[in-house]
């Protein structure tokens, strides 16, 4: 068990994999998230890879408000990501609903459906802020592995 833990710790520290889900955002935060992965900001130098399969992911990055139709998908994706995992909410909409909080089809922020570990405010947040959030989540992942939350 100790060996597996050590292995997991090295893997997660060196290469955290990220799943991005657009949960009703206006695209602003999504393209900034993608910009983080491209050469100018280059998250890949920290080993961050954007994956499409929730079962491969360590970090779950959610942008946008939750509405009645996508809450199920959000929860579904959350449950499919194996422990340990860190949830990042990116953008004002994901935090509280933002400018759309009063709109008829909006439930609110992401934390109404799933627990959120790190909040990144901004409309949209700067790529630097998103990058910092991702790096913080790696530290959090390490903690989760060390404290036995596997």
């Amino acid at each position, binding site marked *: 068990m100790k060996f597996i833990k050590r292995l997991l710790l090295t893997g997660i520290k060196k290469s955290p994999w990220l799943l991005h889900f*657009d949960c*009703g955002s206006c695209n602003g935060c999504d393209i900034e998230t993608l910009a983080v992965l491209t050469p100018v900001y280059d998250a890949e130098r920290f080993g961050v890879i954007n994956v499409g399969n929730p079962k491969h992911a360590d970090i779950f990055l959610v942008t946008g408000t939750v509405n009645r139709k996508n809450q199920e998908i959000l929860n579904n994706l959350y449950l499919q990501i194996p422990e340990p995992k860190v949830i990042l909410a990116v953008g004002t909409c994901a935090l509280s609903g933002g400018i759309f909080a009063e709109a008829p089809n909006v439930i609110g922020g992401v934390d109404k459906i799933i627990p959120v570990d790190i909040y990144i405010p901004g409309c*949209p947040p700067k790529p630097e802020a998103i990058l910092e959030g991702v790096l913080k989540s790696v530290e959090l992942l390490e903690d989760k592995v060390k404290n036995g939350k596997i």
Partner: protein
Amino acid sequence: MPKTIIPFGPQHPVLPEPLHFSLTVEDEIVQEAIPGFGYVHRGLEKLCEIKDIHKMIQVVERVCGICSKIHALCYCEGIEQMMGVEVPPRAKYLRTIWSELHRMHSHLLWLGLFADSFGFESLFYHFWRIREKILDINEKTAGNRIIVSVNILGGVKRDLSTEDQKWILAELKEIENKLEEVKDTLFKDYTISKRTKGKGILSAEEALYLGAVGPVLRASGVAQDCRQLQYAAFSELDFEPVIAQEGDSFARMQVRYFELFQSIDLIRQALSKIPEGPISVKVKGYPEGENVFRVEQPRGEVFYYFKANGSKFLDRLRIRTPTFANVPALAKMLTGIELADVPVVILSIDPCISCTER
């Protein structure tokens, strides 16, 4: 082999946005594609009842983060037309410059995502690196990288200084050179032609019949561009719609690539003709009556309907976005192609789901 129904999306690695398609597949060939929507629906048209006409600008900017400036332009020009407000000429030129910068950033973004959809990752990175230059211009001149909030009713909020204008021209020159560099790869690469030529063909008649708009329509050989309606400063600028004849994914890529050069040219023309003067006028009172306004977005024609009652809130705001108009054409394109080509063809219309569902 019996028919199989394959769900595509809502969470899919190729699409950054949740779009769902139920694909009925028989021997790897798509027989029927039924789109499913509602994952990004926020109901923001309804917000016009609780946010006044000035605050609604910030809401319509967030219909879509990629073409935010152009949504605000359409909204402002529509309301100004209803109220009979005459916008100063300098403001018109500034609106044109920012909207063309937005078109360029959107097309570069799309070219990158399109390259990614057939697995050409280095080209994806290359386009996004070029795009960062435009985002730098946005950040320096308007204060934000993506959601550029410069429009107000009666003009614009920010001005471009002479140094800024010179800097923009220098940056555009550099962008033009960098775009020329990738031209050979884009048009002569074997993989790109193999994956895009002849995929998702839409003839001119079908495009008109299904109500396609924007680059999808122009790639089928129809020279129709809403900028010819001469809103903002387009009446004083010189341009021809970019068209292609084949109507396939490759033609749509070609149209968008050459529109980048068209936008560079339009910005240069606008910067050379820009008059001195005030950048906004004070708007008093509230609109009354009905109005319709159309502008050309990177993805095609966007249509705004306003109904006002003379109070500070609008009665009704209706937004019809280009992707909504292109979805019937997309459903047509998807039938009869191989399953492996589905991501390429979906991306070829440059889908913006957050626009479509609002």
